[in-house]
């Protein structure tokens, strides 16, 4: 696979019968050994994309190859090349962690003599040796996610899909999982396609980030490149008197591009950098505008998201169409080749 992209997607579309295009013509390329962060709010099309790339959902049109294999025509080869931990760790609460791994090693065709050793090694790797013989129903969210990761690694796939792997986890479990994912990519050369709705996660983990909103990729690049596009820091001002918001906006308009959040806050880009902050403070003082809070923001992926989509990531896209649970061949299928 070296030299060729690990994942290549061209004009991929997925439509559902009674909904909008969940994925609307996306293009992306992921290199071997890269961690690609697919960032977007709920309903943006992240999971639908993962289901198509893992062969669990047919695309309506477009083309995608994973590990050099076409996801439509060479599904079995794609599945042999990938491991996947899909959204909501799909585990059987009645079985133990060890039983899950033994089932997975059997179904993945690991030779009988190696199954026990492989299971023990994976349990140790994800820190579940002591809990191995407990039923999964009693595991914490973090333990379930770690078991899910171990199950995805059973057949040592070169490409790993992780669909929102840290959603709902406490900070400690989250950072432990980040550490393991980074190690898989950087030490073992596994390509990781990671979807997330956490900016911090994409920023910390991903070599490159694709931002998806309403089924379209609106920005792509390394976190540093994306932040550099925004360029300058911004200052967010909250007036004591929210009715003074219009005056505040008028006052700050001369400093740079302005954004208002509708709750009285005004944010202004500072093209001159942090040095302009003193000028802003002076202007507020001279105008007699009393300020409750004044915050300087360095450019973040949130700013990138806001700049590219016109809305903040948090809470965006709630209730929009995503792939139905359990996959299923619902909706139209049109092979676009």
């Amino acid at each position, binding site marked *: 696979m070296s030299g060729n992209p690990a994942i290549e997607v061209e004009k991929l579309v997925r439509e559902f019968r009674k909904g909008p295009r969940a994925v609307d013509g996306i293009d992306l390329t992921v290199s071997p050994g890269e961690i690609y962060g697919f960032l977007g709010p709920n309903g943006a099309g992240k999971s639908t994309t993962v289901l198509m790339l*893992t*062969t*669990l*959902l*047919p695309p309506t049109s477009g083309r995608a190859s994973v*590990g050099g294999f076409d*996801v*439509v*025509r060479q*599904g*079995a080869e794609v*599945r*042999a*090349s*990938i491991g996947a931990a*899909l*959204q*909501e760790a*799909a*585990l*059987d609460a*009645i*079985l133990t962690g060890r*039983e899950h791994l033994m*089932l*997975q090693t*059997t*179904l*993945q*065709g*690991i*030779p009988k003599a190696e199954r026990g050793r*492989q299971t023990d*090694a*994976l349990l*140790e*790797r*994800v*820190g579940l040796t002591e809990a191995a013989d407990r*039923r999964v129903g009693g595991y914490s969210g973090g333990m379930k996610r*770690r078991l899910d990761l171990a*199950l995805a*690694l059973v*057949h*040592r*796939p*070169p490409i790993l899909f992780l669909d929102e792997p840290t959603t709902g986890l406490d900070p400690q479990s989250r950072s*432990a*999982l980040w*550490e*393991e994912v980074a*190690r898989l990519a950087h030490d*073992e*050369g*596994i390509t990781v396609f990671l979807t997330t709705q956490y900016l911090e996660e994409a920023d910390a983990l991903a070599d490159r980030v694709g931002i998806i909103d309403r089924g379209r990729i609106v920005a792509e690049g390394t976190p540093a490149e994306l932040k550099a596009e925004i360029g300058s820091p911004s200052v967010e001002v909250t007036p004591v008197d929210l009715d003074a918001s219009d005056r505040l906006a008028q006052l700050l308009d001369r400093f740079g591009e302005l954004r208002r959040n509708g709750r009285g806050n005004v944010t202004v880009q500072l093209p001159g950098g942090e040095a302009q902050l003193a000028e802003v403070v002076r202007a507020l003082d001279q105008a007699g505008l009393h300020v409750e809070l004044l915050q300087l923001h360095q450019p973040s992926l949130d700013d990138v998201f806001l700049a590219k989509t016109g809305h903040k990531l948090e809470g965006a896209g709630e209730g929009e169409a995503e792939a139905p*649970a*359990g*996959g*299923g*061949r619902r909706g139209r299928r049109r092979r676009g080749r």
Partner: protein
Amino acid sequence: MAVDVALGPIAAQRSTAPGVVEQTLAVAHRAVIRTLRQRALLIFPMIFPLILFAINGSALSAATHIPRFPTSNYRDFLIAMPFIQGAMFVSISAGVDLARDIESGFMNRLALTPLRSEAMLVGQLGGALVIGVIQAIVYLLVGVATGVTFASGVGGAILVIGISILIAFAFASLGELLALRFGTGEAVQSIFPLLFVTLFLSSSSLPRNLIKADWFREVATYNPVSYLLESLRSLVITGWNAQALELGIGFAVALLVITVALSQRVMKSRLARL
């Protein structure tokens, strides 16, 4: 968490896909574990038919005074009913189990392995096999303890267990089909009353030739459940009746074959792996 454990070089290391028998046994092993660890699934559906057996066996015993009634002990006649009711309950537990796998995404996990659909379908029935065996033995023992005698002897009693397991298998397969078709446990459970209606519209309480209402007798004659009941009943009351056995076993096998075939078809779209 980052314990340094060598797993070998990174490259897909699936050797060859396991054979269909090994896959089936692996899935069946899981189904059996699940069944044995959920005792409520095992016990309550087993008790309900026994309660009905006790009530009807006492309340309807006067039916034996009807001329041409085939036995003087109504429980001999009635004992076939718990076996069929139990099998119908198995259909629900098998269907709900599979529906839960679909809803939770566990089916997607399996779909990402080289698991063949027929191995999954048959393997999932492993749990039904366990319930079927336990139920059949319990019903048989309760029947004998309450005075039921087998005209076909010990061999017939053993065959009753065998046929009832086959029937439980067939109904479990129907449950799987419903789960695959509708995808939710609630949908599977909502079908259950319809199944029960087929039991009451059969020869469950009276022999077909003694049913007075023409429409009811007609419905019972066309209802395959009548023949399932009559095959079991024949071994208790009349001995070795080849025609009754052929019809009962034939309908059970037909139900199993049809539902497995349809399930496999629906499974292809449900799994949606390409």
